[in-house]
């Protein structure tokens, strides 16, 4: 199993995530979303979920970013993990969309992740990482 790289305070969920179909029909607490699946199917069950794993079969497939945002926008605050072709240079976008744990196929170096996340201290738009966008800062918000 690949190493989990987590930005959370709690320990990563070790339960193996099940498919949406299996999740909807049972009582698992960890679920995996494949690209193309409708994340919104999970919204009625957020209370019982401890982990959502979102698959990135290729880093160029950006559907997982919307999946993450949709979950966070709906108030999900347990572990949200990006799995697959998760590369250093996409981490910042993933983090901004609400991912807080990563299961990259090729391991990431902690110091490099740290540097990437700290690189930009200003952002232009609101997202799910709580960073206040410059258009608020400019107007005292």
């Amino acid at each position, binding site marked *: 199993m690949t190493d989990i790289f987590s930005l959370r305070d709690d320990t990563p969920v070790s339960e193996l995530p099940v498919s949406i179909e299996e999740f909807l029909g049972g009582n698992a607490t960890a679920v995996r979303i494949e690209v193309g699946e409708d994340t919104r199917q999970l919204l009625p069950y957020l209370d019982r979920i401890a982990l959502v794993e979102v698959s990135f079969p290729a*880093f160029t497939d*950006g559907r997982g970013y919307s999946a993450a945002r949709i979950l966070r926008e709906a108030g999900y605050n347990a572990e949200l993990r990006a799995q697959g072709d998760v590369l250093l240079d996409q981490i910042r976008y993933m983090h901004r969309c609400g991912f807080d744990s990563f299961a990259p196929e090729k391991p990431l170096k902690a110091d490099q992740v740290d540097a990437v996340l700290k*690189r930009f201290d*200003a952002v*232009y738009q609101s997202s799910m990482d709580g960073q206040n966008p*410059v*258009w608020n800062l400019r107007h005292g918000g």
Partner: protein
Amino acid sequence: MYKYDQYDQSIVDARVAEFRDQVERRLAGEITEDQFKPLRLQNGLYLQLHAYMLRVAIPYGTLNSKQMKMLAHIARKYDRDYGHFTTRQNIQYNWIQLDQTPDLLEELASVEMHAIQTSGNCIRNISSDQYAGAAADEVADPRPWAELLRQWSTFHPEFAHLPRKFKFAVIASEEDRAAMRLHDIGIQLVHNDAGELGARFFVGGGMGRTPMIGPMVRDFVPADDLVSYAEACLRVYNRYGRRDNKYKARIKILVHELGKDEYTRQVEEEFKHIKTLNLDPPKAELERITTFFQDPDYDLSASDDLDLSDPDFAVWVNQNVKAHKQTGYAIANISLKPIGGIPGDASSAQIDVMADLAKDYSFDELRVTHAQNIVLPHVKKSDLYALWQKLDEAELATPNLDLISDMIACPGLDYCSLANARSIPVAQKIATRFADVGKQKELGELKLKISGCINACGHHHAGHIGILGVDRKGVENYQLSLGGSGAEDVSLAKITGPGFDEDGIVDAVEKATNVYLEQREGDERFVDTYRRVGMAPFKEALYD
């Protein structure tokens, strides 16, 4: 002109540092070319046939003389002494060394410029009307809205890996000088009944392999909802746009396959949700940006008279100078289409001259047009003669705006690795065939556009005359099409029939123009005659 504050500057500076780090990792062999490719592409750096090509963003085509000077400096220091202005109102350099790009970007950042999102499957440079702020027919200056969208889309985390590249255009007039409806999202600013300014959204236009004219999905989006509405349009696309086939991945295919009504329904539903998240900027932000786009300090007593006794000057004024909203002022177009030249190319020396002229005669402002020309938007009429003389000295006074030799041509097989055929030599041969200005003027407004492959960077679908280079059994071949338009009378050109070889296409263009001259009625333009008489007489002349 918009001016960066400390936030804008810090974001651009951080990007330069990030790219420097990425290039170092690449040069040190820590990352492979495969891994590096998406990183450089998000930064406008392409690997072309012979070298790296760097595309620099010129947001909504507006820049000042200091920035223009920097573009000349970069051409001189990092390239072969020239730059190429593109149909996206950007500039490209064709001969860049990878190890020098971080320094180059750092120099750009020093004048508030960058290459962010000039390539890759993300939201690209926002384009606009090159006459913004100067045209009498606009309801407002569209550029504050374009700037707001530029900021919103810069490093947008959710939309950094869309199915395909994504292009916005923002205009504010009925006359469409930016091919707005051939963009992924076209926005036209309008007033509602209450007199408030808002955005009319057209989604799913585009050129490429399957050209489409974008349908309107909302007739009025208030300023306060602009960002939320754009997020909704993009989210539906990011989730459901096709990713199985590069040629079906643009939003136009999604809108077409779902149907405009279903796409609109999904967007409205998403919008209703997104609007609850409080993502829109405070009202004061658009107001803040708008203050940067106030009218310059016009001389209100400037005379409207113009001495046209020099016939060469008169020809240039007649063709390249357009009416300005302010009495005593005019819009001067600088053609980058000298007969036999490469459309859109300018030497460092010429770029410097244009920068100086903007400073001296146009309140320090220049525009790049999607037709690959330069505009000095605010010139006092009494300065036009002096301006023209200086342009003429720099070989920048070709009086051919909107005439047949003012053509759009993509780089084609001379530079582009995707090309099937060369565009530039065809453009040069056609221009040379029609070199006589009298002959061109006789033909009137005639928009000729050439693409070197089906990707349509040369906008051939939107040409009154369009030319598409294809590969026919290893030989370059050119398809002719007629009747397109990227303006408010937007339409897609139709193919005439079998293609031609390089010399054959030049003859074919001439034959088509002859049909027009024979058939035209009154002051019909080429495209009007074509629309009235249809394809038949053209076919007959071309293939009999």
